[in-house]
């Protein structure tokens, strides 16, 4: 049984891992160590951002998603394509054909996450008008950024948008729609077509209520099945509901484009996100009302489970934005009903993950901090990674957490060996008292 609480989509293929140290130095939460020649991912720290998948020269990291087979267990399998899905195909292919392609693969229904996004945008507009909110409000659409905040920036939890992600909203609306069509709850299966490992994890943790997501299939998987046939498919009548407002969420900047006028900003790429969050934590950017932050460069089109280069994908998205200009208005009564049914509510409230604490006990933590400082005076400060930890400081932390030893550092090992040799040398020159001659 997989423990859903700590399920992670990002995995290691031990066979392929050569124990090089590329990934450990790139991980934004220092979640990876090399132990016994293989990378190890700390599940508590991992945020599923996919950086290690991108950086690994041996392709030993991968993102676990579901196979298409899983949809067969449901008589009403609904596909929820991510906006980034649209960006994979050649310019000129209509959204209708792409969605038709999903039906062709065996889904009975489709519900666009892009439509979920534009509905959510209306609710965000409403939220941003509230008076006592901590600004900038940080988007909750990217689960890797949400986890990053829980792990590294717990004091910014109050800034996180307390609404569900576009995926969560779409999942609930899709299920409600299917039930209105007469399907029984157990017949309905909701499947996300994902560019993103973090969203696979989000899907696994969706629970079993209205917002339940029964599987996540990668964009790359679906793309490979459709790329050669999608152009030939018939143009279906009115399958697509989404407009430029929702489609734009595929790339960085799309969220703010779908909102009413305001002071907004967008940041993408996990390392840039970190530096912006640091500024926000220090009290800057308070004049910004809403901050869109995405772990992948370019936004979700840069997700590791997508196929197309993100910059090429952006060209595709720009074409679609110009083509689908008609936004289908949403009635306030509908919004009211959805609110009542909890469509915008998050299942889980945000929670500080205190993995950076050195010890549960405050006094012990302080002692450990002092030990780290002492160790750092002796470590070489090269951050070479040979010990299997990303930096000398990280090794020192690992040592005080009893997860590593001083001699894991080759320089420390050498130093200790030298001391030993000196001792051996000194001992070798000693003679038992009975045999010793009186020194002149």
């Amino acid at each position, binding site marked *: 049984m997989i423990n859903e609480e700590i399920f992670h989509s990002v995995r290691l293929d031990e066979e392929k891992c050569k124990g090089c140290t590329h990934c450990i130095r790139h991980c934004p939460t220092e979640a990876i160590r090399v132990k016994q020649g293989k990378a190890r991912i700390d599940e508590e720290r991992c945020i599923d951002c996919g950086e290690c998948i991108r950086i690994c020269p041996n392709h030993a990291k991968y993102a676990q998603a579901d196979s298409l087979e899983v949809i067969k267990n449901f008589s009403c399998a609904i596909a929820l394509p991510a906006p980034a899905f649209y960006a994979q195909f050649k310019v000129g292919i209509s959204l209708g054909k792409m969605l038709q392609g999903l039906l062709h693969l065996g889904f009975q229904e489709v519900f666009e996450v892009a439509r979920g996004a534009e509905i959510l945008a209306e609710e965000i507009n409403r939220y941003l008008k509230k008076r006592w909110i901590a600004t900038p409000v940080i988007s909750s659409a990217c689960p890797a950024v949400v986890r990053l905040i829980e792990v590294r920036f*717990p*004091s910014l*939890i109050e800034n996180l948008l307390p609404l569900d992600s576009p995926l969560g909203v779409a999942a609930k609306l899709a299920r409600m729609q299917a039930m209105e069509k007469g399907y029984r709850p157990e017949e309905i299966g909701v499947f996300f077509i994902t560019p993103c490992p973090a969203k696979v994890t989000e899907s696994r943790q969706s629970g079993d209520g209205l917002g339940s997501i029964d599987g996540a299939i990668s964009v790359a998987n679906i793309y490979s099945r459709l790329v050669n046939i999608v152009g030939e498919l018939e143009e279906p009548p009115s399958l697509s509901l989404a407009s430029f407002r929702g489609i734009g969420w595929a790339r960085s900047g799309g969220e703010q484009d779908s909102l009413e006028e305001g002071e907004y900003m967008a940041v993408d790429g996990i390392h840039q996100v970190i530096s912006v969050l*640091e*500024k926000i*934590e*220090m*009290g*800057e950017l308070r004049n910004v009302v809403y901050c869109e932050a995405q772990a992948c460069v370019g936004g979700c089109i840069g997700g590791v489970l997508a196929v197309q280069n993100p910059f090429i994908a952006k060209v595709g998205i720009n074409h679609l934005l110009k083509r689908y200009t008609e936004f289908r208005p949403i009635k306030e009564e509908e919004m009211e009903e959805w609110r009542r049914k909890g469509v915008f509510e998050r299942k889980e409230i945000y929670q*500080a993950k*205190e993995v*950076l*604490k*050195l*010890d*549960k006990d*405050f*006094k012990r*933590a*302080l002692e450990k*901090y*002092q030990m780290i*400082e002492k160790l750092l005076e002796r470590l070489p400060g090269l951050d070479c990674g040979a010990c299997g930890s990303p930096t000398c400081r990280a090794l020192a*932390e690992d040592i005080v957490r009893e997860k590593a030893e001083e001699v894991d550092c080759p320089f420390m090992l050498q130093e200790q060996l030298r001391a030993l040799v000196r001792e051996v040398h000194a001992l070798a020159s000693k003679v038992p008292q009975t045999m010793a001659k009186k020194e002149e």
Partner: protein
Amino acid sequence: MEEDKVLVEIEREIVGGDFQSAGDVSGELKKVLQQVGFPPSFNRRVVIAAYEAEMNVVIHAYRGIFATEIYEDRVHIEVDDQGPGIPDLELAFQEGYSTAPPHIREMGFGAGYGLSNMKKCSDHLEIDTRIGEGTKVVMDFFLNPEK
């Protein structure tokens, strides 16, 4: 009683005009507070005030020393700079008052809320300033301010 012992000390230099490293010291302080396990809301106010004090040296002074002492139940910060000093403290504390030149404002700094933020975020603030010599900012943050 040993309760008022300094547990961690950090002392760093700040260089006026060095905008690329600006914020590094406050960032380092944040990491320490996080690792030893002070609550996030406490860390936030320490870090905001520390950052404002650090930035004031970067923006307005020539160089300074940023010294922190972490105790079991409080954090003490002293930022001592060599710089022009502040001629009118009362005026400087007014929200929106700033002498930062336009090119600094264009970078997004110098909105004139630094000193008032420092006052809001800290539990005790003292400023000692001498025209033509420098400014010393002393701040204390208590884990349980009521006590």
